[in-house]
């Protein structure tokens, strides 16, 4: 029983972090219809920001306030100067934007490698290893905080998309770009802002992950894969779906690790991903209609 | 038995019924007009006939064979060709290659396909633009290409979906001319059209639907005089 509960808790906490990674991706995929294969790399960048600030004595949670705006700007720049121009370019493959994000991911990784080498970096705080226990079940303090903040951001995003003008414009663009344009939404600007927000959100995930994990230039790739699994699970453009997707992936990985063996962790994720693609197109959003 | 018949065709999407029990017969060699206001279910009918949608219920009978629910490419092989309301040119292929691709549904060798294509291009008056990329054709050219491509599959029955929309008067005349010549070659035609004088002039029979159900059928004259049709097109005030 303890094993089961501990696995459950571990999966849940990890899932909160995954959700935060997923929300940014789901917005970008929902609004622009492209897969951002540089998503994990953006998170990696935020982790390095956290690391650099940490060497100057800044707490990772404080660096949220630096990394998020920075990554917002970077996201805006990428969308404006690298992705939006492609809409006008005549090509054979409509996936050009996706391929562009592959290139961007490579460049980001290599620039960081140039600056920091391939060495592992880590952000140690006095609370990195701290835990509290409920019964026999141990909770990691930083992961619990991360879970809380992820939940907070999701609710904020939910409110933002539902209640603000900008949020409504983003939702309109996600639903039907042409119709939104006709209704007077500047969809070019919306895509730029969306990519910025998506980048800022994944930056938050990076800052929260930094104290419990470690940092190296190639860390982005695996998280990009996780991000798109979460997005497909939850359904494109659905913030609540991203939470579901994140927690589902976290739980599935943990359960898979405990009851199948840890080496199956990634296969469990990929299998669920393929099954959802095939049998539940639209993800959990389809079930809940949220 | 009829050459082509649909029996009580029904198609629902979720809770919405797009086509609700439509039946009609088409005789070989006819030009059969299908009219109805926007959203009345005409294109849905075409999509069921050509295999894009599987009907919720009902039958599609072609040369005494039930074909509902068959895949589009099978239906094409049986001899039913179609055009699309929103044209779907194979954009980065030349006009000639578009038609060659379609010709391969009947022949396997490149030489035969090319010969077939040249013949069709000539018939449709597209020979001068054969080397142009399909995406750079003007709208009239694209509509014509749709027809040429459908003809290249050597259909016995041709479904034309709003071939005349967006054409200028000269282009209209030559389009009507083309449709007549297609019929003269022995191909039966079912045509969806909004431009009344076009459909009234070339059709042998007309079937009118509204909200997915039949409201009238008969010769162009009969349908034009039908009260339900007038109401559907002009609203009750004009009745």
């Amino acid at each position, binding site marked *: 029983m303890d094993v089961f509960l501990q696995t459950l808790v571990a999966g849940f906490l990890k899932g909160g972090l995954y959700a935060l990674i997923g929300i940014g991706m789901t917005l970008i995929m929902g609004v622009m219809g492209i897969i951002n294969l540089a998503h994990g790399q953006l998170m990696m960048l935020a982790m390095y920001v956290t690391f650099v600030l940490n060497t100057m004595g800044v707490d990772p949670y404080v660096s949220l306030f630096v990394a998020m705006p920075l990554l917002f700007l970077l996201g805006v720049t990428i969308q404006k100067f690298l992705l939006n121009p492609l809409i006008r370019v005549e090509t054979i493959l409509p996936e050009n934007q996706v391929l562009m994000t592959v290139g961007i991911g490579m460049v980001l990784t290599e620039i960081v490698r140039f600056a920091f080498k391939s060495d592992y970096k880590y952000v140690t705080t006095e609370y990195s290893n701290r835990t509290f226990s409920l019964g026999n079940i141990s909770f990691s303090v930083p992961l619990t905080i991360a879970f809380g903040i992820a939940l907070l951001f999701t609710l904020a995003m939910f409110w933002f998309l539902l209640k603000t003008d900008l949020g409504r414009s983003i939702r309109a663009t996600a639903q039907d770009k042409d119709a939104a344009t006709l209704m007077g939404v500047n969809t070019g600007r919306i895509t730029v802002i969306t990519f910025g927000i998506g980048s800022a959100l994944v930056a938050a995930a990076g800052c929260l992950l930094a104290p419990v994990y470690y940092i190296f230039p190639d*860390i982005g790739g695996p998280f990009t894969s996780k991000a798109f699994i979460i997005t497909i699970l939850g359904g494109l453009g659905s913030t609540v779906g991203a939470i579901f997707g994140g927690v589902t992936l976290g739980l599935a990985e943990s359960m898979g690790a405990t009851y199948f063996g840890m080496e199956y962790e990634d296969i469990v994720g990929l299998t669920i991903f393929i099954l959802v693609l095939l049998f539940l197109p639209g993800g959990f959003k389809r079930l809940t209609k949220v | 038995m009829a050459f082509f018949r649909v029996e009580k065709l029904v198609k629902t999407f979720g809770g919405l019924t797009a086509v609700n029990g439509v039946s009609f017969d088409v005789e070989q060699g006819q030009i059969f007009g299908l009219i109805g206001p926007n959203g009345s279910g005409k294109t849905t009918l075409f999509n069921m006939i050509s295999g894009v949608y599987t009907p919720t219920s009902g039958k599609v009978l072609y040369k005494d064979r039930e074909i509902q629910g068959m895949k589009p490419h099978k239906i094409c092989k049986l001899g039913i060709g179609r055009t699309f309301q929103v044209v779907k040119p194979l954009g980065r292929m030349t006009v000639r290659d578009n038609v060659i691709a379609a010709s391969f549904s009947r022949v396997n060798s490149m030489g035969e396909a090319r010969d077939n294509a040249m013949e069709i291009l000539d018939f449709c008056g597209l020979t001068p633009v054969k080397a142009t990329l399909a995406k750079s054709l003007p709208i009239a050219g694209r509509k014509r290409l749709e027809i040429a491509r459908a003809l290249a599959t050597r259909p016995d029955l041709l479904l034309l979906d709003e071939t005349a929309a967006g054409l200028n008067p000269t282009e209209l005349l030559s389009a009507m001319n083309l449709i007549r010549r297609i019929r003269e070659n022995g191909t039966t035609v079912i045509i969806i059209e909004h431009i009344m004088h076009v459909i009234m002039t070339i059709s042998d029979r007309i079937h009118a639907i509204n909200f997915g159900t039949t409201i009238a059928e008969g010769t162009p004259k009969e349908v034009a005089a039908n009260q339900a049709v007038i109401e559907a097109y002009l609203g009750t005030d004009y009745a």
Partner: protein
Amino acid sequence: MNLRSGVMSAFAAVLFALGIASGALAAEKVKVGVLLPLTGSQAKFGEIEKRSYEMAAEEINAKGGINGSMIELIFEDDTGKPDVGRSAVEKLISRDKVPVITGGYSSSVTAAAAPVAQQLKVPFVICTGSADDVTEKGYDFVFRINPPASEYPKAVESFLKEVAKDVKTVVLLYENSAFGQSSSKSFEKDAEAAGLKIVLKEGYQAGAIDFKPILTKVKAANPDMIYMVSYVMDASLLMRQSKELGINPKLYVGGGAGFTLPEFAKSAGDAADYVYSATLWVDTLPFPGAKQYAENFQKKYGSDTEYHGAEAYAAMYVVADALKRATSASAPTPQAVRDALAKTDMMTAFGPVKFVSYGKKSQQNKLDTYMVQWQKGELEAVWPAKVATKKYVYPTPAWNARK
């Protein structure tokens, strides 16, 4: 048109310069090719090894080089990929015409490079690549200084036999890498032969965020010993999360790789305390020049070295020694260097080097391995007793019993 001819003439100039570049370097020097990952994810160790090679070459040159001619190192970046590594070896042999190649960091690059050296008959002195296969093919031009992966846990086995006699149950965790899979397999075999019971054996994909599920299972199994083959950051996470869960075996042992690196202790903090690890080398070993090498490295580059660096440093001396014996009047031929290498019998900072055949292996250096333990943030050699700098702490104190 002007621009085009400009491009053409620039191209011609480049070709010309390339011709000079390859010709001009043929002065009175002895070339040694070094194959290392200098970019990519393994670059960290490639860099340490490169510096060690350079340091050793400078020392040798300062003492007169190879019978008067200077050693010139030609580094080739294998980027950690076998096909690139192979390009590099081909270049070293056919363009630079080196009489001997050394280096070889990752198992996969080493395994792809060794047959090339063998077929082209140029000796290849491997300093790190640890795949067992490489010296089991009867290649007579391939030599290896470091022990193969399967032999890393040797010292652990003797420690279990002589000290930790009450260890009966073992949990085995390893990363799914060449090193992890092969050394865990050989450890399992030997442990079972010694009468230990493997209660849980799990591989994992390097880079996991969370080891809690697996560690929860470990805790439930309550083993006497946890043996982990992990790279540095996984190692650190494993220990941190073991501490979080309060798992208390009699000893934690790392199977080489990540557990001996300074980063492990720094990032794991006090969770690293009392952790044992198998290792191939520490600077306190009583080999001539070991301590000095570590100190000089620190002085010269301002950063710490570790066993990979020592392997490279020793490899340079082994190669130089063979070159000296192979160089009589003329420049050394690959064949002469190979013959000289086969007769190598010398002491280095990394330990004695002599290429012997045993079991399936040939031209393999046979070395002892050691056990180290983190004590108060310092890595101390604890086993075998004759090389110990501190006495081992056994059994490991329970987490809540520590201050």
